């Protein structure tokens, strides 16, 4: 077998190695000890796959391709090192969008190439091209809308208007009709361009009615779409590597979407179509918690006494803590408490941050060791033996109404059961509500003490008071 005969086989074998590395890499990403190596293995797999593709006979345009790779690498590397950890959801959102755009462009470019060669286009080929454009286009614009909402460029509240769902349905029907026309006459360019535009509009239409609080679900779902888009592009160019990698990513995105939905007690259908948090919200919850009820407020000195003389403290960080950039200050407080013999743990709700696992990354950045971070299922049975639960910038995820108040919009959502601890201290700016718009009945309970103020400021005061004990 000579070189030219071996080359195609060698390329396919390289793909097989790369696909295996992706699978092993993802597997190792499942444990904190091996996660970094897993990511590196996947990166090596990608490198092998790219080099193998460059060796394909049809690839001759090396200068321009390598220029593109260099430009992309520089932009990607700068973005990766500059991004703040609080902005990870936006970053993943943008990257999803770019991946989707690349997949859609591959489908479009391949179609153009086949059309200009005057080769006959089979219906199956055309259908894969349509799917590639649809999924890629929706991923692109959907991700950018999600980015806009997370970054605060677009309003976080769901954007709803009359006849929204009929209009979306109409758009989808128009897309399907256009697809049929396209399969009958692929050379009809206005129809082809119309399909591209329709898929881009669909992406916007799918994400604008979803509220900022639901973005963890949306980001997970778009992550899944970006994988499916790559798989669709793989069908278009008939490349197994794209199909396998795309399917793996599609599966991981769906699993995470499912986990997020469960953590919020919502179905994916409800997240996508309900416009949650726009009008409902306030009704049921606030009625059950009357305005005559009062809260007990304490100052940092009293708070420090309770924390310093406790045996066990559980800290419940919410996104409010991250926004206030208080995680390093919190870590100082915890170090001080631990040096005094207090047992401290962190309880992390699955939707504590803006994307799955976001809070864990933010605390890891503040040098909190990961064995101290407890998942909801692990920590809930421990609250009964906890002296003080310290809630910093979290709200809906600790509202006991989720357990018993059937009229509450968050009824049924799994929560951190801080009301079972002996005392709860809530650090909060004021009496504002969380994403759901519901007042939190925890704040009005006898054993709950409110510490009003900005998270960073209050935690710093607590730390200095604890030091003086």
């Amino acid at each position, binding site marked *: 077998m000579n070189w030219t005969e071996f080359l195609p086989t060698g390329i396919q074998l390289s793909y097989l190695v790369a*696909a295996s590395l992706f699978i092993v890499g993802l597997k190792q990403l499942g444990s904190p000890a091996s996660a970094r190596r897993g990511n590196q293995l996947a990166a090596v797999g990608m490198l092998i796959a790219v080099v193998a593709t460059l060796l394909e006979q049809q690839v001759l345009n090396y200068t321009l391709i390598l220029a593109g790779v260099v*430009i992309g690498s520089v932009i990607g590397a700068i973005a990766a090192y500059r991004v703040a950890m609080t902005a990870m959801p936006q*970053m993943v959102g943008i990257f999803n969008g770019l*991946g989707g755009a690349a997949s859609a462009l591959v489908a479009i470019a391949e179609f153009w190439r086949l059309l200009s060669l005057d080769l006959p286009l089979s219906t199956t080929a055309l259908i894969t091209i349509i799917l590639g454009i649809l999924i890629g286009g929706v991923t692109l614009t959907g991700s950018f809308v999600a980015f806009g909402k997370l970054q605060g460029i677009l309003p976080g509240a769901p954007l709803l208007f009359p006849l929204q769902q009929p209009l979306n349905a109409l758009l989808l029907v128009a897309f399907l009709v256009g697809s049929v026309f396209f399969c009958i006459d692929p050379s009809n360019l206005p129809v082809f361009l119309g399909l591209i535009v329709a898929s881009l509009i669909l992406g916007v239409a799918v994400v604008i009615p979803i509220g900022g609080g639901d973005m963890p679900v949306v980001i997970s779902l778009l992550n899944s779409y970006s994988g499916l888009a*790559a798989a669709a592009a793989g069908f278009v160019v008939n490349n197994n590597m794209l199909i396998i990698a795309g399917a793996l990513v599609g599966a991981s995105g769906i699993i995470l979407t499912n986990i997020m939905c469960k953590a919020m007690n919502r179905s994916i259908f409800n997240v996508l179509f309900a416009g949650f948090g726009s009008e409902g919200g306030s009704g049921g919850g606030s009625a059950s918690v009357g305005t005559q009820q009062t809260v007990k407020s304490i100052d940092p000195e009293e708070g420090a006494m309770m924390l310093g003389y406790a045996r066990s403290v559980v800290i419940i960080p919410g996104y409010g803590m991250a926004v206030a950039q208080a995680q390093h200050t919190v870590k100082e407080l915890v170090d001080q408490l631990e040096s005094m013999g207090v047992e401290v743990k962190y309880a992390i709700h699955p939707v504590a941050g803006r994307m799955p696992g976001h809070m*864990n990354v933010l605390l890891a950045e503040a040098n909190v*060791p990961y064995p101290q971070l407890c998942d909801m299922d692990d920590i809930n049975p421990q609250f009964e033996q906890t002296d003080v639960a310290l809630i910093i910038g979290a709200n809906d995820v600790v509202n006991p109404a989720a357990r018993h108040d059937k009229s509450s919009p968050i009824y049924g959502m799994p929560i951190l059961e801080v009301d079972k601890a002996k005392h709860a201290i809530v650090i909060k700016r004021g009496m504002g509500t969380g994403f759901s718009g519901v007042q939190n009945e925890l704040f009005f309970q006898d054993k709950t003490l409110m510490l009003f103020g900005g998270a960073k400021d209050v935690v710093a005061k607590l730390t200095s008071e604890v030091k003086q004990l």
Partner: protein
Amino acid sequence: MTTATLITCLFVFVLASFVGFEVINKVPPTLHTPLMSGANAISGIAVLGAILVSGALGWNISIALGLIAVVLATINVVGGFLVTDRMLLMFKK
């Protein structure tokens, strides 16, 4: 694309999806963000397709679109793997 190749592709897609579900199902919540950004980097695999469609010499619309796709997908790949590595470096015992 013939129906036979489509079927082969479908087999690969469905089986790989099952592998994905099995491999990823048991990831602890601590690692969900790195998992997502790592998976995100893998979805930049579209760069292979981009290289294939922009491979010919000369200039036409296909090649131009393919080259744009090369840049976008590479940002996705390189940025995704590097930021995941940066995050995982922070996870300490």
